[in-house]
């Protein structure tokens, strides 16, 4: 199990456990953490799973691949920054145990 902490726009912190191999999107949805919609089912097609990766974790998570679908899509999400990622594209691997993700107020 991998541990992930989601920080809501209002500052609420929720720590959840998720099986290795699933994604940060599932970590939120399967544990009823509000703030991620994930309309497309996690196949990188909707950008409603936008999160901000905590600065301290950015070097391990990394930016979206340049020129890939995630970069193409994420530019249309609201309030993106250099730490923006789509949660369905962050696979839960052991190096990310303890990951902290910040949620936007609403998904567009």
């Amino acid at each position: 199990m991998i541990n992930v902490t989601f920080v809501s726009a209002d500052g609420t912190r929720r720590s959840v456990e998720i099986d290795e191999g699933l994604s940060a999107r599932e970590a939120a949805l399967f544990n009823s953490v509000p703030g991620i919609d994930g309309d497309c089912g996690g196949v990188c097609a909707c950008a409603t799973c936008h999160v901000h990766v905590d600065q301290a974790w950015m070097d391990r998570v990394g930016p979206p691949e340049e020129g890939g679908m995630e970069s193409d899509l994420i530019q249309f999400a609201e309030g993106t920054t250099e730490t923006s990622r789509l949660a369905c594209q962050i696979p839960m691997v052991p190096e990310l145990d303890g990951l902290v993700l910040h949620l936007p107020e609403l998904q567009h």
Partner: protein
Amino acid sequence: MATAANEDRVHYDSVESIPLEAINVANPYLFQNDTVGEYFTRLRREDPVHYCAASRFGPYWSVTKFNDIMAVDTNHKVFSSEAKLGGISVQDMHSVEGALELEMFIAMDQPKHDQQRKAVSPVVAPSNLLLLEPIIRERAGAILDSLPVGEEIDWVKLVSVELTTMTLATIFDFPWDERAKLTRWSDVTTASPETGIVESFEQRREELIQCAMYFKGLWEERIDKPGGNDLISMMAHSPATRDMPFLEFLGNLLLLIVGGNDTTRNSISGGVLALNQNPGEYQKLRDNPALVSSMIPEIIRWQTPLTHMRRTALEDAEIGGKQIRKGDKVVMWYLSGNRDETVIDRADQFIIDRENPRHHLSFGFGIHRCMGNRLAELQLRIIWEEILKRFRFVEVVGEPERLLSNLVRGITRLPVKLHAH
């Protein structure tokens, strides 16, 4: 053209008896008489990526299953939306002498699509829209309060059209008494002389120029006024859109108007029809009005206000095992994918409390995914909350009439009787 129309009317006893290669699901009559669903069921089963070699729209591929549609919609580098290649519907967009060419990013590829969408997208971001909610709610209430209870009325004319025009006028802060202009311009934007909406391309051009002048006036009034949550003020104030060339600004503005007009209107009508056809679901809703939030995406799936989007292949490609050639026309039938039982549980049933109700194709997916999807849901949610407060039953009392169109899945008349609580 006459022969094409006759071809469309050829009659078979049953869908099963038609030779596969003779199936042409783009025939607009199949949508008007609402029988196209049987054709899609057969194609999903027997030939999910189907080639129609001859139709009045030319040869085209039909993609009918959810996952194949998703694969095309998310492969924008191969499947183009470009207007000059034919654009986004099975009917080619063609340049017509004398027509005003409006540039809209829905029919553009990268990189121009991305620049324009990025500039306009914040005006329909959910956080901005919440500011408009109280006004939309109050105006929706006033329209509903003006309706006669217990008499037969046409829900489309008195409610769906009125509510949609009202919400458009609200999000643009459009002069209230002139709001019918918005609906007219929306109709004119997508009109060609065959539709009867305009008599000629010259007339269309004239009207759109009037529209442009009108919006220019609003823009100039608002550009120096601080604040303003309406879409025109936001576009006039935002650094990304402030200096847009005027025709580009107009194209984007009209895209926002057109995008939200027929689609929202038919979702309002389609919802009433679906609840009447499924009385058990209507009862669930009365018992628990909080279900409105999961019912709205289900109504949008069920109605599928835009039946399809089209792409043009920029190179050879494969879809569902079929070989697509460069230049081929590829039609993604959202209406069919939304009934694909291999992806959506009990896809042929209208169920207002689904677990993942937004997992449908009505808004498309990928970089062209409907930019107004949260706005559409917000409007419909407010409207339904206000309907439920006032009426125990919006009863359909006659046959619905449907639009002759293979793109807009429209209800043109819906006789209802209202019952108060």
